[in-house]
């Protein structure tokens, strides 16, 4: 592992380094579980848990909901759900995966809610999301990046989720399989289809 880390630093291979850091964090997070389940240490452990995971979970959520304000809402809901249900965590899955699932579910729930609230708007919810994204003060995309986000938004919600985890978060299929409860084969097929759709969309826009 030391050698790998050295190589990463040498080549500045951020992707592999990030994965190494994630693995180290994983251990630290697992150690927090008994503390989270003990009322005496719960508050302190929760603060530590948030310190370790807020960035990862935030970016996971943000890629789904696109707008900062919404991502902040969903992240807060996620931690409240984690707080309320951590006692019932029995370790059938890795704690990190479990948290990821809650965040994913919260993001999907949030979007379902938004979709219902905007049912009267004479516009696809996806287009509305893109419009809100571009108007967000915390969006800073150039023409190409905006086109790329639009292309991703043409994917069905859950395919988009898989695409983001694979493409932006560099997650392995095994990890995504665990988070989504889907077979690796189906995920690979899905990613392939998503990538093709995105390429086709961008090509169409360019022509």
């Amino acid at each position, binding site marked *: 592992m030391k050698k790998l880390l050295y190589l990463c630093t040498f080549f500045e291979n951020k992707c592999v380094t990030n994965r190494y850091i994630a693995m180290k964090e994983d251990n630290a997070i697992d150690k927090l579980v008994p503390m989270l389940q003990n009322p005496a240490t719960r508050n302190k452990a*929760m603060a530590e848990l*948030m310190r370790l995971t807020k960035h990862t979970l935030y970016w996971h959520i943000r890629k789904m909901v696109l707008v900062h304000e919404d991502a902040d809402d969903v992240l807060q809901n996620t931690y409240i759900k984690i*707080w309320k249900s951590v006692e019932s965590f029995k370790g059938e899955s890795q704690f990190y995966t479990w948290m990821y699932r809650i965040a*994913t579910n919260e993001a999907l729930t949030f979007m*379902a809610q938004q979709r219902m609230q905007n049912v009267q708007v004479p516009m696809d919810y996806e287009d509305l999301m893109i419009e809100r994204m571009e108007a967000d003060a915390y969006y800073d995309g150039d023409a190409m990046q905006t086109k790329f986000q639009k292309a991703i938004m043409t994917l069905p919600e859950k395919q988009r989720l898989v695409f983001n985890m694979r493409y932006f978060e560099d997650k392995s299929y095994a990890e995504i399989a665990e988070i989504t409860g889907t077979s690796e084969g189906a995920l690979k*097929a899905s990613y392939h*289809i998503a990538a093709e759709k*995105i390429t086709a969309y961008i090509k169409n826009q360019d022509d």
Partner: protein
Amino acid sequence: MENNMENMEKKLPFEVPENYFEGFEEKMMAKIEAMEAAEAKEVKMKKVRDINTAGSSKPMWGKWATGVAAAAVVLVGVFTVLNLRNDVSQTGEEIMMAASDEEYYDVLNEELSTLEIEEALAQIEFEYEY
């Protein structure tokens, strides 16, 4: 053209407000503690109410009404839970509408295993459940 995605820089065009992450856990802990305090207060008040009403002699019809109301609540609850259990293709909004947090947690694991990604992803076209 195939290389479009390879060439795409993986940097996201998203930013966060300055200092958003700093102090996030403090802010969140304050929120959680306030929530806990409010819930504890609620439980305490309920206990006081229970003690106050325990010795009171209600007229017979009042007791009946209470019984019927309680039965109705239980029935509605049972129906909700049964519906939640039976519906395999549960969606986010159904979970959202689950009456209590406990139900939410009950279905949480189920929901994700039935995300139907597998099915959906094997096809090119995807039907929204929403």
